[in-house]
């Protein structure tokens, strides 16, 4: 609605939302004239706005019709995977010299958010590829590794990240998967669990310990191609939510990997994992944000149409207060997420803010989806409406890529340091 004021500046164009959303966006050229003050957090460059609109349109037209079926069948449609690559959504930050889009981290965040509004499973596929796999490869890869993998990651190959095991989730460094050195190659043995996108991945970034005596300082990152002998994809988990995203065990039985397939340095894997997960959690925050917003966007119109006791249920103050409360939480989550992303882009410290954004967005997604079902009443509880899927999908947000408790502990640790001086 236009009850919200739009700031009009001659060089910018105002874009009002198609459907009610809690965010108003203004496209602004990156170099705003001096003296205009600091633009609000929800200010995008022209490309960022164009990309967001392009993905929004694509998600509505090409992904939305398949969402229900993919959820039922626990399977990502080939057509979706193909079109994600075709549109350049799988290589957003990969440089154009490797066939990628050559855009920024913030663009990835916007893309993930838009995809999540329609299907959080599709969003997580895009998120893992961009924020975990591509980032690791681009930052740590040798020229040879980058030339071999980046073009494929940008155009047709999905990557999976193998860290967790049955016995090590939050306590990631307690991993048991070992890599034994023999001359110029390593033999990897072990079992990874909860590996997203494993069903379709062509390459796996595997964290294994190459020097158990050194404890976690032996953990090393290996690039393992899918067709390597001894690598076996286990059964797909039958999950509550994010069902279209495949989650499998991946087993390594004497998998031979040449030392030139080590990403970065031996024994530095733990550092790389932590470093990259810091950015990754902003991506998850974006996913949870989009999920919550998408759910909200479906529920509120219903409350404005549904009549009981002679008026719209939206007109009851009790409901208005709940809706306004949720909208406020959504806005706060959005600003936390966007700010964390901008901080990262600016090269400033962002770990605390990234943890806060992931933790908060996941909590807001849980709150929002739960409330939306209530607002929709009986129909919210049926599979005929998309709401219940958002409710099921959101739960993993407080669990994966660092549980809420881990996020809070990290924030506390950083606060402790801040107050140390």
């Amino acid at each position, binding site marked *: 609605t236009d009850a919200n004021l739009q700031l009009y500046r001659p060089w910018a164009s105002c874009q009002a939302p198609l459907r009610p959303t809690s965010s108003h966006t203004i496209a602004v050229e990156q170099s705003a004239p001096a003296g205009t003050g600091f633009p609000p957090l929800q200010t995008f460059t022209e490309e960022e706005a164009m990309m967001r609109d392009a993905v929004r349109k694509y998600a509505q037209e090409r992904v939305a019709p398949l969402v229900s079926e993919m959820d039922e069948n626990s399977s990502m449609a080939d057509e979706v995977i193909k079109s994600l690559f075709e549109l350049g959504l799988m290589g957003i930050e990969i440089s154009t010299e490797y066939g990628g889009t050559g*855009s920024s981290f913030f663009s990835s965040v916007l893309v993930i958010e838009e995809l999540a509004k329609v299907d959080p499973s599709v969003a997580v596929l895009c998120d893992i590829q961009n924020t975990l796999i591509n980032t690791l490869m681009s930052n740590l890869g040798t020229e040879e590794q980058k030339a071999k993998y980046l073009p494929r990651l940008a155009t047709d190959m999905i990557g999976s990240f193998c860290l967790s095991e049955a016995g090590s989730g939050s306590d990631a460094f307690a991993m048991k998967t070992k890599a034994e050195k023999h001359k110029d190659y390593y033999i990897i043995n072990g079992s990874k669990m909860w590996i997203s996108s494993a069903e379709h991945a062509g390459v796996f970034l595997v964290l294994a310990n190459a020097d158990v005596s050194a404890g976690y300082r032996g953990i090393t990152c290996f690039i393992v191609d899918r067709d390597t002998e001894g690598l076996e994809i286990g059964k797909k988990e039958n999950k509550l939510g994010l069902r279209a995203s495949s989650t499998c065990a991946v087993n390594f039985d004497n998998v031979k990997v040449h030392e030139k397939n080590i990403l970065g340095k031996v024994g530095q894997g733990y550092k790389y994992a932590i470093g990259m997960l810091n950015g990754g959690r902003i991506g998850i925050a974006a996913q949870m944000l989009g999920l919550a917003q998408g759910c909200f966007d479906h529920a509120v119109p219903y409350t404005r149409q549904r009549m009981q006791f002679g008026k719209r249920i939206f007109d009851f103050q009790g409901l208005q207060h709940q809706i306004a409360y949720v909208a406020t939480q959504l806005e706060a989550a959005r600003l936390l997420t966007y700010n964390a992303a901008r901080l990262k882009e600016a090269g400033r410290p962002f770990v605390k803010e990234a943890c806060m954004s992931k933790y908060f967005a996941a909590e807001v997604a849980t709150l929002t989806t739960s409330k939306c079902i209530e607002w929709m009443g009986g129909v919210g509880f049926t599979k005929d409406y998309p709401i219940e899927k958002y409710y099921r999908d959101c739960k993993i947000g407080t669990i994966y890529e660092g549980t809420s408790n881990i996020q809070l502990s990290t924030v506390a640790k950083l606060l402790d340091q801040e107050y140390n001086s």
Partner: protein
Amino acid sequence: MAARVLVGVKRVIDYAVKIRVKPDNTGVVTDGVKHSMNPFCEIAVEEAVRLKEKKLVKEVVAVSCGPQQVQETIRTALAMGADRGIHVEVSGKDYDSLGPLQVSKILAALAKKEEASLIILGKQAIDDDCNQTGQMTAALLDWPQGTFASEVAVEGDKLKVIREVDGGLETIKINLPAVVTADLRLNTPRYATLPNIMKAKKKKITNVKPGDLGVDLTSRLEVLRVDEPPQRQAGVKVETVEDLVGKLKEAGRI
């Protein structure tokens, strides 16, 4: 073989937006409302880009008339594959009263200046539904026209155009240079891929003033009033045929 194609793209209120009339009935509310490229213009751009991909044309130039904001629309055309853009600066009162006659004069002048041999436009804009610009442009240039095109094929120095007409489909052959207007079934426009959006940043948009093209923007039309369509009234249920006839007579319908 046409060397250069001019494609006109118009910035209009997005098709999904609920239109509201301004309280003073002088027009519709545009401030803060989502705008996009006219859907028929998207189809026109797609056709031009396809011709380029088939190597039947060398360059696709996207043109739009309006204030600063139309540059977004030109950028979208560039992201779909157009090579460069021309922004014809029209703003304020001139923009409010800009219509097919002025736009066709601008396009005709540009076609001569750019030595274009093919102009592809959307058949009409979804805001004014005029369906005149293509036809007027062809007349001003004295070029043949293939309007309501649902298929376009290049045959040497001629164009075969299949047109959607009331009675069905009409196939015509016209000489180049020509004007074609795109109808709904001509093609399905591509999504701008993210890499192409990035590339579009580097493509050039030149600014031109209507005066530089020798075009007079004075409108011969004055909009007197804009109203919403009447609210749909509730119907009346009747029991018998006699009642029905009676009610129709009462309403003066028979």
